[in-house]
């Protein structure tokens, strides 16, 4: 019984560590702690310029492997994620939870792009 207790807690600790380590999951958790639900509904009036940018990066990634484009795209995604992380931090510091929520939604799109890029780099 004690072993199961340890296992459960060890697993919880791992989950907590992973959640807090990643800025996106950390931010979403902070929203949750403050009683704000992460963005759920379709972004119909979301910034069309932003969505267009996400579409374009997706299209670039979908193109057959060109090393240079991949590297360029990887850098772009990293830069955007860093920018967004800074903006989210500022929003939380200001107590502007709605702004944090919007920014975290944007980070989700970039997190997906990061995953897609990682999968592209793995030889299949």
């Amino acid at each position: 019984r004690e072993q199961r207790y340890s296992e459960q807690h060890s697993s919880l600790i791992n989950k907590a560590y992973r959640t807090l380590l990643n800025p996106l999951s950390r931010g979403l958790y902070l929203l949750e702690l403050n009683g704000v639900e992460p963005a759920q509904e379709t972004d119909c009036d979301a910034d069309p310029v932003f969505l267009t940018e996400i579409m374009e990066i997706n299209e670039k990634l979908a193109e057959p492997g060109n090393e240079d484009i991949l590297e360029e795209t990887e850098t772009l995604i990293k830069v955007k994620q860093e920018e967004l992380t800074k903006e989210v931090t500022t929003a939380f510091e200001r107590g502007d939870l709605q702004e944090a929520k919007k920014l975290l939604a944007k980070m989700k799109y970039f997190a997906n792009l990061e995953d897609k890029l990682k999968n592209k780099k793995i030889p299949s």
Partner: protein
Amino acid sequence: VAVGDAVPRQVVDHYENPRNVGSLDRNAKNVGTGLVGAPACGDVMKLQVEVDENGRIVDARFKTFGCGSAIASSSLATEWVKGKTVDEALKIKNTDIAKELCLPPVKLHCSMLAEDAIKAALADYKLKQDPNKEESEKKA
């Protein structure tokens, strides 16, 4: 992977043989473009319609980056809007899409995204036809 995660055959079909993938000229006056995103899962969907002078949708294309259900929903949406008038297409409901594709509850939001994409594309088309109507249209 939980039991009951089996992908419905219809979704696999649309995923492996998507219909109408591509783009239309977004600058053409009779083309409406809808660009929507789902913040919870980070899916993006672009749906375009080409409407003839009688208000009938003669062509439709989509580009979706997301899960199989989102791709299937938008693929089905482009199939369904073709041949319909703008007003008929506005009646397409996410529940119809979900039912046709046998989407599980956890993927219902994908069909909602497709419905929103259709509406966004049609709204864009309408706006292009009569920019002055924008204010009254927004209330609809």
